[in-house]
C-alpha cells in the first residue's frame, strides 16, 4: 500500500473524526439540527469513500453501515434518540480503532465488527420502519437509495447482502455490470439468488433514472445531498472506470467530469487532491514533529548564542555593532516565539473527549452531568498536552464517579438534578491555569486525615494541627490514594498520586480544594512550554542558580536586621503577613556554609500544597532560559531540575522546587506555621508536655523540652577539647559539651569529623550546656506516662510514644551529673499558675514549652471570651495574653479583668508581635513575641517584680502568689 497515501488518509480521517463525538452528542440534544447531521454524515462518508480507494474492506464495511444509518436518519428527518447516538458513537469508535491499528501496523487490523454492523443495519430498518409506521412519504426512500442501494434488495438473507457488500457491489449498477457469472461466483449466493438479484437490480436501475432528474433539479438549486456524492464515486473509479461512469450517470449527474475522475484513479495527482479536499487546507503543510523538535533545539542554541553575542557587542561599545545586534536580537526573539507557536495546540485537542467520557460515565451511573468548558482555545505545547491527557481523564472520571452525587441525594440536598463539571483554562504570565471543578459532594478532609493517620503518612501531632486544605492535599500521597476505602467514603482516590507525578513530570503543580457538600476543585498550573522557561536567577556564595518562575510567588528582601526573622529550634522562619514562612537557607542546604545569621533575599516558592522561602544572597533577575537535562550523575539529586547556559556562557543549575522543599528541616514545625491561624484548642494541658525524640544508635529516647533551648546541627569539628573536657563556642560563650553516647557508655558514634552532629542546647537560669545526640527524630506533645521506672538515674523510666517504647531522659539528673552546681541557685518559681490566652496555635506551641520550662501550671484559652469563662472559676498567678484575638481581644480582656473584684492584682501581661500597642496602661507589662529566651527572661523579671509588690501591698491576703 502506498505509505504516503495511507498517511494522508489517516491524518485526514482522524481530523474528520476528531469532532464527530462532540457533534454526535450535540445531535443528541438537538436531534433536529439538519446541518449538524449533514456534517456528521460527511465525516463518516469521507472515510468510507477513501476506504474503497485504499482497499480497506473492514473499515469500509463499518463506515458504510454507519453511513447508511445516518443517511436514512437524514433523509427521513428521523429524530435520533440516546440509543441511536450510542450506536453511532460505537461506530465512530470502531472506525477509530481500525484507523489506529492501521496507523500502528500499516495493515488493516483484523477485527470483527459484524455484530456492530448488524446492529447498525437493524437500527437502520428500525428507523425506516418507524418512518413507515408514522406514514411518512415513502417515495422519499428513493432518495436514500442513492446512498444505500442494497436496501432495495428485500427478501434476501443478511448473509447475501453481506456477501454483496464484501464483493463491492453496492449499487444496482455494480450488480448489473458484474453480470450473472460473477454474481453466481459469490459465496453463498446460489444461481437462483443471483438471477433474482440481477432481476431486481435491473428493475431498480430504471427507477433512479427518474430520481436522477429530481436530483439534478435539486442540484441546480444548490442542494446538499449531491455534495456528498463525489467521493465514493471517484473512489470507486479506480476499481472500474466503466462502473464509475455508469454510476455517474445513475447516481450523480453533477459529479466531476470524467477527466477529474481519471486523475483520482491515477492516484495522488494535484487534481485529485483538489477534488478531495476543501481549498482551505491547502494553506497548511504537515510537518513531522521530530523535525519541529529539532528546530526547537536549534533555536534554543541560537538564543544562547545571541545572548553571548549581545554581551560581546555591548562590551565593544561600537554603535554599528549595536544596531546590527539589535536586529539579530529581535529576529531571534520573533523566530523563537513563532517556532514555539508551531508546537502549540489548543487545549481543545484533549478536552474534546471530555463530554464523551462524562456522557458515558453518566449513562452508566445514571447521573445527569453537564460539562461547561471555558478557554478551550488556550494553547499549550504539545508535549505538555500529551502528558496532561491521562491525568485529566482521571480527574474527570473521579469527578463524575465520586464527586457528583447520585440523583436522589442531589434532590435531597436541593441541588439541581443535573450535576455540573466545569473546565477552564486561562493563561497567566507564562503559565496555564487549568481548573476542573464539580458541584458534587466534596471531600471530607477528616476522613482523609484519619486514613493518612492509619497509613502512617501523618503523625498524631501533625494531624492535630493540619488545616483541612493541607489535609486534602494528602490525597496525592501514594499509599493513601490507592486505598479503596477513601474512594468509597470521600470520593477521589485511586491513582491521584499518579496524577500528581504526571503533572510534576512536565513541570506543573496540582492543588485540590473542596467544600463538603458543595464540590471539589482541582487547579493545575503548568508551564506553556518546556524547552524555554522563565526563571529567576539568584546568587549564593559566588554561584548562580535558576529557580523556575513557575514556582516563584514573590521576592523579599530580608537583611539580618529584619524584625521578621524567627528562629524556632534552630530553624529559621520569616514572618510574612502574619504567617511564618519556613526558610531554606540555600547556603546551608548545599553545604556551602554552616549556621549563620539568616540574611539576604528570600524567594518565596509555592509548590501547590506548600509555601516556603529560599534564602539566597542575591537576586539577579528573571531570564528566559533554555532547559538542558542534567547527566546521569545528578539523577539522585531531586532538587536539580536541569541546567542552562547563561548569556556569558556559564552553565548554571536549575532547581526543582519540589525537591528543595523536601530539604526544609523540621517540616512538622512548618506545618504548624502553615496552620498558624487554624485549629484552635483550649483547656487544661494537664500532663501533656513538649518533648524531643532522638536516637542514639538503635535506641530511642525522649527528653522533655523543658530545658532544651535550641536544636543545633553542627559540624563535629566545632567541638573543641580542653583540659576540663569538651566545649563548644556558642553565642559568644564557651559551653560544656556532653555526649549522650558517652553518658550511656556506648560511645559517640561519630567518626567523620566533617559529619553533622545534632546538639541540644540546654539552658536554665542563664546557664547553657550542650548535649550531643546521634539523631533527632521529632518534637511531639506527649504525656509522660511512665510505664516502667528505671534503675538508671539518667532515666525517669520507659514510656510509650507513637507505639514505640522510649526511654525518658531525666534531664535534671543529666545536667546535675555534669554540673552539680547547675541548680544551686534557689528556684522559687515552682507550681505557679498561669493563664495563657492566645488564638494562634502556632504561638501556643511556641510559648508553652517556655512556660513549662519555668515550671508553671498552665491553662490556655484561645480568645478573651474563653479566658473569661476560665477565670470565673480559676485564679491564676499571672495572665499572659495576646492582643489580637477573635471574639474578645487583649484590651477588652484586660479591661474585663480590671473590673472583676476577685481578679484584682493579678498581673496581666501582654504578649504581642506588634511593636507598639494602643493602650499600655491596661497591662502590667508588654512582652514582644520574639524568641523564647527573651520571653523567659521577661517573665522572670515580671514575676520577681510582682512578687515584691504583692507582698508589700497586700501582704498576701488578696491574691496570694503561692510558692511551691
Amino acid at each position: 500500500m502506498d505509505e504516503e497515501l495511507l498517511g494522508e488518509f489517516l491524518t485526514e480521517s482522524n481530523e474528520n473524526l476528531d469532532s464527530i463525538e462532540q457533534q454526535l452528542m450535540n445531535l443528541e440534544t438537538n436531534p433536529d439540527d439538519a446541518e449538524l447531521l449533514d456534517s456528521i454524515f460527511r465525516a463518516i462518508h469521507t472515510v468510507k469513500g477513501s476506504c474503497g480507494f485504499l482497499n480497506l474492506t473492514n473499515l469500509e464495511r463499518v463506515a458504510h453501515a454507519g453511513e447508511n444509518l445516518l443517511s436514512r436518519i437524514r433523509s427521513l428527518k428521523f429524530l435520533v434518540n440516546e440509543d441511536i447516538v450510542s450506536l453511532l458513537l460505537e461506530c465512530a469508535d470502531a472506525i477509530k480503532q481500525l484507523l489506529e491499528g492501521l496507523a500502528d501496523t500499516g495493515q488493516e487490523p483484523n477485527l470483527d465488527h459484524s455484530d456492530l454492523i448488524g446492529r447498525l443495519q437493524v437500527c437502520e430498518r428500525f428507523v425506516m420502519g418507524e418512518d413507515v409506521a408514522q406514514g411518512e412519504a415513502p417515495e422519499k426512500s428513493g432518495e436514500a437509495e442513492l446512498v444505500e442501494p442494497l436496501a432495495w434488495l428485500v427478501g434476501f438473507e443478511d448473509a447475501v447482502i453481506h456477501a454483496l457488500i464484501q464483493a463491492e457491489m453496492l449499487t444496482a449498477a455494480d450488480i448489473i455490470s458484474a453480470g450473472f457469472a460473477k454474481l453466481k461466483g459469490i459465496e453463498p449466493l446460489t444461481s437462483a439468488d443471483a438471477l433474482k438479484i440481477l432481476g431486481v437490480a435491473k428493475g431498480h436501475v430504471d427507477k433512479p433514472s427518474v430520481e436522477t432528474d429530481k436530483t439534478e433539479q435539486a442540484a441546480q438549486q444548490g442542494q446538499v445531498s449531491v455534495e456528498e456524492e463525489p467521493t465514493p464515486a471517484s473512489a470507486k473509479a479506480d476499481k472500474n472506470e466503466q462502473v464509475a461512469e455508469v454510476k455517474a450517470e445513475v447516481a450523480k449527474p453533477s459529479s466531476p467530469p470524467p477527466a477529474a475522475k481519471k486523475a483520482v484513479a491515477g492516484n495522488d495527482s494535484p487534481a485529485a487532491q483538489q477534488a478531495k479536499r476543501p481549498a482551505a487546507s491547502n494553506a497548511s503543510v504537515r510537518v513531522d514533529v521530530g523535525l519541529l523538535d529539532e528546530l526547537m533545539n536549534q533555536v534554543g542554541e541560537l538564543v544562547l548564542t545571541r545572548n553571548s553575542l549581545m554581551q560581546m557587542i555591548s562590551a565593544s561599545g561600537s554603535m554599528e555593532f549595536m544596531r546590527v545586534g539589535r536586529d539579530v536580537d529581535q529576529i531571534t526573539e520573533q523566530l523563537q516565539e513563532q517556532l514555539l507557536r508551531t508546537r502549540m495546540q489548543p487545549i481543545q485537542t484533549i478536552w474534546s473527549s471530555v463530554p464523551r467520557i462524562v456522557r458515558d460515565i453518566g449513562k452508566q451511573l445514571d447521573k445527569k452531568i453537564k460539562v461547561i468548558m471555558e478557554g478551550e482555545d488556550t494553547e499549550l505545547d504539545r508535549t505538555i498536552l500529551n502528558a496532561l491527557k491521562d491525568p485529566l481523564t482521571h480527574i474527570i472520571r473521579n469527578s463524575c464517579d465520586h464527586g457528583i452525587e447520585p440523583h436522589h441525594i442531589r434532590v435531597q440536598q436541593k441541588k439541581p438534578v443535573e450535576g455540573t463539571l466545569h473546565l477552564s483554562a486561562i493563561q497567566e504570565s507564562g503559565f496555564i491555569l487549568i481548573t476542573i471543578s464539580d458541584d458534587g459532594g466534596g471531600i471530607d478532609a477528616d476522613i482523609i486525615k484519619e486514613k493518612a493517620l492509619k497509613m502512617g503518612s501523618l503523625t498524631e501531632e501533625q494531624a492535630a494541627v493540619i488545616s483541612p486544605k493541607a489535609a486534602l492535599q494528602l490525597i496525592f500521597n501514594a499509599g493513601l490514594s490507592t486505598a479503596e476505602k477513601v474512594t468509597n467514603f470521600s470520593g477521589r482516590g485511586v491513582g491521584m498520586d499518579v496524577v500528581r507525578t504526571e503533572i510534576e513530570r512536565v513541570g506543573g503543580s496540582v492543588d485540590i480544594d473542596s467544600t463538603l457538600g458543595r464540590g471539589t476543585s482541582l487547579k493545575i498550573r503548568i508551564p506553556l512550554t518546556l524547552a524555554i522557561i522563565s526563571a529567576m536567577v539568584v546568587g549564593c556564595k559566588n554561584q548562580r542558580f535558576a529557580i523556575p518562575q513557575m514556582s516563584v510567588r514573590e521576592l523579599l528582601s530580608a537583611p539580618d536586621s529584619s524584625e521578621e526573622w524567627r528562629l524556632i529550634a534552630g530553624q529559621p522562619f520569616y514572618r510574612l503577613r502574619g504567617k511564618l514562612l519556613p526558610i531554606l537557607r540555600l547556603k546551608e542546604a548545599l553545604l556551602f556554609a554552616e549556621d549563620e545569621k539568616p540574611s539576604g533575599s528570600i524567594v518565596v516558592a509555592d509548590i501547590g500544597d506548600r509555601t516556603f522561602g529560599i534564602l539566597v544572597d542575591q537576586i539577579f533577575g528573571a531570564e528566559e532560559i533554555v532547559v538542558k537535562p542534567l547527566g546521569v550523575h545528578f539523577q539522585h539529586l531531586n532538587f536539580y531540575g536541569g541546567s542552562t547556559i547563561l548569556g556569558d556562557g556559564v552553565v548554571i543549575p536549575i532547581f526543582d522546587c519540589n525537591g528543595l522543599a523536601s530539604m526544609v528541616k523540621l517540616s512538622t514545625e512548618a506545618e504548624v506555621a502553615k496552620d498558624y491561624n487554624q485549629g484552635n484548642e483550649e483547656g487544661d494541658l494537664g500532663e501533656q508536655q513538649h518533648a524531643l525524640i532522638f536516637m542514639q544508635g538503635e535506641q530511642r529516647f525522649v527528653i522533655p523540652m523543658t530545658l532544651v533551648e535550641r536544636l543545633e546541627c553542627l559540624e563535629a569539628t566545632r567541638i573543641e577539647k580542653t583540659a576540663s573536657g569538651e566545649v563548644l563556642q556558642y553565642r559568644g560563650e564557651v559551653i560544656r559539651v556532653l555526649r549522650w553516647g558517652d553518658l550511656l557508655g556506648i560511645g559517640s558514634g561519630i567518626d567523620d569529623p566533617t559529619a553533622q552532629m545534632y546538639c541540644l542546647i540546654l539552658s536554665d537560669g542563664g546557664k547553657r550546656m550542650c548535649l550531643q545526640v546521634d539523631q533527632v527524630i521529632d518534637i511531639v506533645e506527649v504525656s509522660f506516662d511512665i510505664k516502667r521506672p528505671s534503675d538508671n538515674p539518667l532515666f525517669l523510666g520507659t514510656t510509650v510514644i507513637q507505639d514505640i517504647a522510649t526511654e525518658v531522659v531525666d534531664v535534671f539528673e543529666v545536667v546535675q551529673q555534669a554540673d552539680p552546681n547547675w541548680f544551686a541557685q534557689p528556684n522559687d518559681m515552682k507550681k505557679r499558675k498561669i493563664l495563657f490566652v492566645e488564638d494562634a496555635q502556632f504561638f501556643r506551641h511556641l510559648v508553652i514549652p517556655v512556660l513549662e520550662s519555668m515550671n508553671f501550671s498552665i491553662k490556655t484559652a484561645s480568645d478573651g471570651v474563653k479566658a473569661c469563662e476560665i477565670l470565673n472559676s480559676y485564679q491564676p498567678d499571672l495572665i499572659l495574653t495576646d492582643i489580637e484575638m477573635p471574639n474578645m481581644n487583649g484590651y477588652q480582656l484586660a479591661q474585663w479583668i480590671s473590673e472583676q473584684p476577685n481578679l484584682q492584682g493579678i498581673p496581666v501581661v501582654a504578649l504581642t508581635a506588634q511593636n507598639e500597642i494602643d493602650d499600655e496602661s491596661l497591662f502590667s507589662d508588654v512582652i514582644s513575641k520574639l524568641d523564647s529566651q527573651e520571653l523567659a527572661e521577661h517573665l522572670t523579671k515580671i514575676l520577681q517584680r510582682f512578687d515584691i509588690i504583692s507582698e508589700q501591698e497586700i501582704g498576701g491576703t488578696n491574691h496570694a502568689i503561692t510558692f511551691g
Partner: protein
Amino acid sequence: MAQELAPIAVKENASVELLTCRIGDQWVGFRVQQVREVVNRQRRTQMPMAPEAVAGLINLRGKVITELEVRRVVGLPDRDEDAPFHVAIVETLSGEDFGLIVDDIGEVIVLNEDLFESTPRSLDDVWRQVSDGVLKQENRVLLLMNVDRFIGLTIPNAAAPNTKEITLH
C-alpha cells in the same frame, strides 16, 4: 581550543586506534571512536552535593557536559590549582557525553588488538575494574580503558533504579 585528532589511514583487521592519556603515572588508551575531541580548561560550574567524581559542568558549544575527575576516581590526590590538564570528551553507550579530566594527552596509536594481555592482578583495584587489557611497552604499561565501565563507577547508587526521569528537555 579543540585539538583535532589526525585521522589515521591504517585500517587493519582487529586493529585498534587508541588515544593515549596520562593520569598520574598511569598511561591509558581510549578507543578513538569513543573520543569526540580533546579540549583544554573550560569554564566550569561546580555542582553542590554532586558525587565526588564530578568536577562540574562545562559548556561545550552549547552542550552541557559533566566533567569527571579521573584522579579522584582512582584515588589520586587532586592536582595543583594551576596545574595544566586536558579534557577528553568521550561518548558512552547511553548516548551521554562526558568530559574526562586527564593530566596529559599523548599520541594516537594503532595497534593490533591481539597484543593486549589480560589485566594483571597486581594492578590497582580501580584500574583493574575499568581495564579491558594491558599492553606492555618499553617503558610503560598502557591500559586499555573501558569508558562505559569507568563512568559506571562514578555514578552513585548505580545499583539503585533511576527514580527520577529526566523531565525537562
